[in-house]
């Protein structure tokens, strides 16, 4: 009784508790010798705080062992605990951030919520995903990150509606149809007719970019004559007009192979591109936004991709959280 009272009142210092834990771990080691035990006993006897910390650590250890041993053998305890803790961490980081940055964050927090296009679409991907589909006419469709597409095939036409995001279309022969049906892709800024080959349609805020990688595509403009886009060309299309773009600083269809391929691209533009594939904020300070980079980057893990940058550019990464990453000039 008196001893437990003493134990209650004592408050061993953190250093002493750490030492007690060290002793426990040494003794738990299967190869521990009698000499270790002896030295542990000497340490315990050296001060009442030592003995107090030792008793507590021992009782904690017993309790922990009991709990873990009560889990059935071969149970998926480790997976369940580890996976759920990781997810909980991500969730807390995200929600905490969204609470702190009410104004600034709305633009990207909104991206976490599935918009109506994604609910109603026939084909859709989330941020960071890409996937492919084969349609009944032989056309193949690849969806890039955060994309929603609907399909509307009738006896007269094969219409693909791009709600948002970016698709790669490989024109199918439509051999089963008794009458020829045009293959059409509609988006907020216009309508494209795939004549042959492969093309990429990428819808952005104010315009849509059409890039023909192979074959020919007809750009249909309301109230103007149509334009034929050839392989290797990219057009910037708004509701009013279409203009041919100078050679792009990145390969428009590389994402379909899980890659970003850049030629002398501004770092600021590159990061904007990468951030399409991940949640959260990704940006850099003004002074380094103009740095240029060329290369082939794998999209499957954008954290790994970012980790490569300091090897080629004088920059360093700063992770405030996993979801909030800025690049700055190397100090």
């Amino acid at each position, binding site marked *: 009784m008196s001893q437990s009272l003493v134990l209650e009142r004592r408050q061993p210092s*953190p250093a002493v*508790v*750490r030492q007690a*834990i*060290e002793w*426990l*771990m040494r003794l738990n080691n299967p190869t521990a010798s009698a000499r270790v035990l002896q030295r542990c006993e000497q340490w315990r006897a050296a001060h009442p705080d030592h003995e107090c910390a030792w008793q*507590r*650590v021992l009782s*904690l*250890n017993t*309790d*922990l062992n009991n*709990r*873990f041993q*009560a*889990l*059935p053998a*071969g*149970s*998926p*305890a*480790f*997976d*369940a*605990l*580890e*996976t*759920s*803790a*990781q*997810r*909980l*961490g991500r*969730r*807390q980081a995200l*929600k905490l951030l969204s*609470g702190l940055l009410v104004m600034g964050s709305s633009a990207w927090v909104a991206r976490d919520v599935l918009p109506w296009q994604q609910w109603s679409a026939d084909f859709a991907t989330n941020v960071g995903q890409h996937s492919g589909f084969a349609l009944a006419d032989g056309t193949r469709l690849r969806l890039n990150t955060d994309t929603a597409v609907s399909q509307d095939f009738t006896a007269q036409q094969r219409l693909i509606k791009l709600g948002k995001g970016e698709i790669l279309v490989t024109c199918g022969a439509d051999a089963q149809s008794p009458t020829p049906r045009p293959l059409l892709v509609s988006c907020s800024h216009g309508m494209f007719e795939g004549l042959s080959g492969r093309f990429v349609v990428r819808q952005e805020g104010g315009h849509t970019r059409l890039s023909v990688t192979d074959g020919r595509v007809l750009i249909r403009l309301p109230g103007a004559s149509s334009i034929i886009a050839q392989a290797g060309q990219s057009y910037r299309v708004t509701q009013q007009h279409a203009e041919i773009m100078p050679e792009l600083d990145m390969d428009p269809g590389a994402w379909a192979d899980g890659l970003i391929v850049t030629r002398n691209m501004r770092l600021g533009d590159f990061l904007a591109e990468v951030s399409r594939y991940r949640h959260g904020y990704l940006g850099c300070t003004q002074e380094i936004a103009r740095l240029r980079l060329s290369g082939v980057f794998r999209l499957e893990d954008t954290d790994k991709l970012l980790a490569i940058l300091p090897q080629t550019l004088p920059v360093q990464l700063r992770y405030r959280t996993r979801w909030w990453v800025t690049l700055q000039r190397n100090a």
Partner: protein
Amino acid sequence: MPSFNATLRVLYSDHHGWLNGWLRSKLGNAADAADLAQDTFVRLLNRNELLELKAPRAFLRTVARGLVIDHWRREELERAYLEALAHLPAQQAPSPESRELVFELLESIARMLDGLKPRVRRAFLLAQCEGLTHKQIAERMEISVRSVERYVADALYHCYLLRYQA
């Protein structure tokens, strides 16, 4: 000085609606938000001390945030546990009763490990759940044995503080 109950009543009538809204924004679900708002005030009842709060909303938010995290932890653990069970061969699948017991045990462990750095948690779990030696953990995590020892010691210290200094 107003009584405990009177203080709580004022707190409730002044801030319950706000707390409910705050929780709904976190949880995205009105029913869960209402439950947790209720739980928050029940927690205060159980504190049994006079509340003289200068910043009642900050205080309520702190209590409620803890409950939100408990709620999420339970959700994530349930999901991860069911996923892990789905990978087991059918004859190894536990009965519903033992499932419930194991889940409670897992939850108590998860709560205990809350706040550990991911690599510390991982090393500790590999030792405790999988019964790996420090050397095996070092190989699996691709770190030194010395680091494993430090992580396991950190985890024990964390549990010690929870148990003796709360």
